[in-house]
Each structure stands twice: as C-alpha cells, then as structure tokens.
C-alpha cells in the first residue's frame, strides 16, 4: 500500500479553472430557478385551460341562443363573444352550421379579428403553420382574406402549399374562371397527390360547370406518368351531374393503363 501512496505522491494532478465549484453552485441555482419557473408556468397553464373552457362554454351558450332564436341578434354582443372565444371552438361551430347562421357568425368573426392570426401565419414561412392557417381561412369570406389566399395560390413557395391554397380558395366560395383555374392547377406541380384529388372533388361539388375542362387538364397531366389520377377520374365518372360523368367517361379511355402499355 505504501508503494502505491509513494507512486501517487510523484504523480502530477489534473488542474482545472478555479471557478468550477462556483459553476456547480450556479448550475444548481439555475436548475432550481428553471424548476420554479416551470411550476409557475404549469399553474398558469392550468388556470388558462380553465379560462379557455369557460370561454368555450360561454360561446356555445351565446351562439346557441342565437341559433335557437331565443333572443334577437345583438351584433356588438356577438362580436364581443367571438373576440373572447377560442379559435378552435369558433371553427368547430362554423363546421357544424350552414346558411344564415354561419354567414352571420363569419361576418362578425371577421370584424372581431378572429382570422387575423391566420393571415399573419400565412406570412410566417413555416409550411405547417401556413397550411393550418389556410384550413382556418376556408371560413373567411372578406376580399382581404381572399386576396391573401390567392397570393399563396399564385406565389406559394411549394406545390403542396399552392394546392392547399387553391383548395381553400375554392372552399371560400369563389368562382374562378375555367382558364384561371386551369392555370392555377397547373401551378400545383406535376405530382398528383391526395390533396389534388380532394381539390378535384371539391371542384366537382362546388363548380360543376368547370369540371369537364378540369378533366381535360387532368388527362393531359396523366400522360406525364401520373396514373394516380385514375381515382379522381373514377370519382368524376360517378358524379351525380350527367355532364360531368359523361365528360369523365369520355376522357377515361386515353389514360387507362392498358392504353399506355399499348
């Protein structure tokens, strides 16, 4: 054992900056601070959740009373209610209602600035936030909102964003010309994604007069090695409007896989 201690006595020791112990205490203090901060945040978040739930219930009660006609519409009061309500709750309400009620709430929601965060998010440059914003803007009707969405249709940075913007633009109730629609669809890139199919379905539902031309466009694109379009074609063929079904059936033959092989 003595030998070992003798050896140890000769050995050089590692040296480190003297402030290391201070760093340890500083680190511990930092940890304690973070923990305390997190706890406070947690308590506040719990309170916020309760407030949101209360605002949600309040909105459902208030809007419900308008829908049921329990008392006349007080626009100022409705607007004030919408200002306080969580966005998700308003959107949920809008999805569940149609006609005059929806139009009334949308108009007041626009005035209350409910959709303003979505417009801001459109300019964020983060794809997921932009797509989420477009989902929200489907319910907006004002010209400013339409312009913002149209900007993304034309100048959106990616094909995915452009197709989503075009979907939103049509869902907003717009009626673009056939040529404009064709140009915009062409701008959504050569790949046929499920969102394209959703877009064609929406166009078939909302703009039935446009679909034959759309089918023509789809056909042209189908020759660009995109056979997934057959699903959209199939949907179009079974569309309740005979004109669309006929157009789709007429144009189905050229893009059938067997024709490609031949």
């Amino acid at each position, binding site marked *: 054992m003595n030998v070992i201690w003798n050896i140890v006595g000769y050995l050089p020791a590692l040296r480190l900056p003297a402030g290391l112990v201070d760093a340890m205490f500083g680190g511990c203090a930092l940890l304690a601070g973070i923990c305390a901060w997190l706890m406070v945040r947690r308590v506040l*978040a719990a309170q916020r959740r309760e407030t949101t739930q209360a605002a949600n219930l309040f909105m459902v009660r208030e809007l419900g009373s308008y829908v049921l006609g329990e008392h006349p519409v007080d626009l100022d009061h409705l607007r004030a209610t919408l200002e306080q309500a969580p966005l998700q709750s308003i959107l949920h309400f809008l999805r569940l209602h149609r006609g005059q009620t929806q139009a009334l709430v949308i108009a007041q929601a626009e005035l209350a600035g409910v959709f303003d965060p979505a417009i801001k998010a459109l300019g964020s440059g983060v794809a997921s936030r932009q797509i989420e914003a477009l989902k929200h803007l489907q319910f907006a009707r004002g010209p400013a909102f339409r312009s913002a969405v149209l900007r993304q249709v034309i100048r959106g940075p990616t094909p995915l964003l452009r197709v989503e913007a075009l979907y939103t633009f049509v869902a907003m109730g717009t009626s673009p010309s056939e040529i404009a629609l064709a140009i915009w669809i062409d701008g959504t890139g050569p790949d046929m994604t499920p969102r394209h199919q959703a877009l064609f379905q929406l166009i078939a539902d909302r703009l039935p007069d446009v679909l034959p031309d759309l089918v023509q466009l789809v056909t042209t694109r189908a020759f660009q090695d995109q056979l997934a379009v057959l699903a959209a074609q199939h949907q179009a063929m079974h569309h309740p409007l005979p004109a669309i079904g006929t157009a789709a059936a007429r144009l189905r033959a050229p893009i059938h896989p067997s024709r490609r092989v031949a």
Partner: protein
Amino acid sequence: MPAPFEVAGMALYNALVAFCVATVILRNGAALIQLAVALRATMREARPTMDMFDLWQRTEAQAPRISVIAPAFNEELSIAQSIQSLLSLQYPDLEVIVVNDGSKDRTMEILRETFDLVPAERAIDRALHHTRVVGCYASRKHDNLLVVDKENGRKADATNAGISYSSGDLICVIDADSVIDPEGLVRAVQPFIEGDGSVIAVGGSIRIANGCTIKGGHVVKVGTGREWLPLFQTLEYFRAFLAGRVAASHGGILLLISGAFGLFRRDVLLEAGGYQHDSLGEDLELLVRLQRIARENNRPHTIAYLPEICCWTEAPFTIEGVRNQRTRWQQGGLQVFFKHRVMLFNKRYGRLGMIAFPLLALEDLIGPIAELLGYVLMVVGLALGILDPAVAVLYFLLTCLFGSLMSAGVLIIEEMQPRPVAGVADFGWLLMAAVVENFGYRQLIQWYRLRGVVHFLKKKTAWAAVPRAGLGGKPAGPPPKGVERRKADLTIDHRDPGDAPQGTPA
C-alpha cells in the same frame, strides 16, 4: 524521480479520464442540440388540431386502407379488450389483423369466443418469411377483423405473417397490449395524404401508461402515478420522444420508429422483405434498412414523426424488468449498428451515414462504457488522491446536473403537447424525478446498458421476461408454466425493443 511505469500509469489514467469527460461532453452537446431543435420546432410548428371533425374532413375521401397488425403472444387477460380497442379506432377504411404467435395460454380460444371466429380463406399476394400458419379466421361480428394463427416465432415473425395477409395500402404495426388514442390513425395518415408521395413511414410518441386511467381500451385520464421507477421512465421517454425523435425527424436523421406504433407503406415493406428475424431491435433494423435501400436506389423518401400521436404502454415496474428491457435494447442497438456499419461516415448515405450513425455509435457503443468508466475513475482517483477534486466536480456537473437540466428542458416541450400530463401535482413529481433520477437510477441504467454490451459480445440472444401488471388495472399475472424463459428463437415478450430512447442519454 518517478519510475517510468508510474509515469505511464498516470498518463493512462489521465488519458482515460480525458476520454470519459470528452465523451460525456460530446453526448451532452448532442443532447443539447436535440433539445434546442425540438424546442424550436415545437414552438414554430402549428399546434396539431384537436378537432376530429377537421381531421376527418381532410382524411375521409382520400383515406388509404390501413391494415392494423397486432401480434399477440400469451395475452389471454387483455387480448379481447385490446382488440376491441383497435376495432374502435376512428378511421374510414380499417382492417385489424391479429396474429396469434403460438400462444400457450387461452389467447386463441378467447379470440374465437369473443369475436365468433370462423375459418376463412385469404389470398396472399406476396408472402414474407414467417413460421407456418396454422389457420386463418374471419369474425362474424366484425367484417374487418382477421385472425392469423401461427406457430411461434418472434414479434418480427408474427408481424411478417400479418403483413403477408394484409390488404391495406398502409400497414400499422402496434403492440397488442398498447393503447393508442382513438384519433391516432387519422392523425398518422395525414403525412401520407398531405405529403408529396415520398413519405414511407410515420411514427408517433410512446408514453407511459402507468398512473393513467384506462377505460374501454382508451386513456381517459392522463397521470404519472407516484412510483419512482415509472416516473423516471416517463422522463426518459419524454427526452427520447419529445426531444430526440423530434430533432432527428427535423434533421432527416430519424433511425427508429417504435415497434409499439408505426405506420408504413406496404409496398415498401414488401420490397424490403419485412422485418428481420434475427434482430433484437427489429424495428430499428427495419427503418435503417428501409432508408438504406431508398438511398442505394436514389429514391426520395421521408420518415415523418408526429409527437402528438400517443401510444400508451406500460413501463416495467420492477428493477428486474427495467434491467432485462435495457439490456435487450442495448443488444438490439449494437446488432443493428454492426450489421449496417458500412453506413458509418459513408457519404453515400447522406446525413444518416454522417450524423445519425455516428450518434448511434456515441450513444450505444461508447456512451455507456465511457460514463460508467468515468464514475469508477473519479471514485478511484479521489480515493487515491491522484485526481484534482475539480475534475470530479466537472464530471458531476456534466452528468448529473446537466441531466437534470435536460429533463427540466424537455418538460417545457411536454407542456406544449396537446395532451400534457395531468395536473400540477403530477408535474411537481416529474420535476422532483428529474433531479432524483441522476443519483442512482442514471448510473444503474448505464450499468444495464454495459450489461447489454457484454451480452452482445458474448452473442447471448435469450430474451428474459419483463414482468408487467397489465393496463387498465388488470394484472397480467405470471406467464404460463414453461414459457418464462426460452431459447433464443422463441417469443417471450412482445414488448418492443424499439421503444428504446434514441439519441438522448438515458
């Protein structure tokens, strides 16, 4: 004058200390970057919608058919409830395939009785490698339920059988005894619908169900419980799934989608030959192989990870269970690393080769050895007086204090999730666990990982059981006689080595 051997001994000691400190610094650096990236991503990305109406609206028309494959082995106590839970998943076009992997208990009888099974013919377009199928059954009660009864293999083998019999465009692999949120599939399919067609797999976060209230096969109340062992594991899972995986996904270096829940394109799985039998980390191996194949064929591919998809699983509640689990994870990680070692620092594999694989080596190969060695060297050095106490303090700062700070940091991300842990009290316990776990548990886990390294070097492939109490308050009870421990090629525990946290120090 000291003798030459004294000088050499001291030089070796100093070199080892420097190696340990440098390794810990590297691991911490990687963990810090992961936390920062995950935090930024969580803050910048849109909060996932909780509105099912919206999710359905976007999914319903374009929803590809999904085959949910649930391998089951000796799960008589929970199988009926688990399958009911899977059948109640909200998705427009769903097929559930239960693969009874040669259970020795009443699993098959219970399936037969509960779901009124009758023999069925099912054509398979392409069979993957699996053991002999004894029978195939359809349910009279549920059109979309298929039960495949086969001889025992491992989870990988059972999953391969399920894939062979599936008819969906997408394959969802899920542990039969895990619980997924009802909207999990609708969420998981979004990247396939919204993407540009390059998405080949989607993963979700695995969360600890201990302390949660489960009714009717669904988590109705989230909680953490008050037992230390599950609390520590909850933090580990948070670090892995809310920081490590999120960061890896954003960096395009995700190597692992947990076998407890993953959604894959069927054609890609078939092309790759399905899961591999001889791996203890079959899900890690699968994802590495899928990406390797895609890279070698210059095909665009994306692996998506959505932390908002929650799959709830029960953590081992005994120290033996944790030991067996971590040992196996470590073995699995090393197997995959050495099998695909050609990818290491290979530019052909892009970020996977240049970043992900070196990180895997740092975490699974060097990390546990270096950290444990460091503790030993510190204690020995201080006892012999050959170590400046400042070095020991530095090591303490780098391991324990940094670990606590990381856990606290990941709890910030956890709070931003759509379903954070319930209540302020639970959060307080987690914060306490974030500190306490670094004094004993952390070192123990490193020891178990080192044990995994030793098992790997000895080529041990026996799987030891991980005892569990069962979800939903149903104790699983002891396994049937004779199945507690078997030879390597038999299934003992379907729990997934792929739950292994990736990319963050345990």
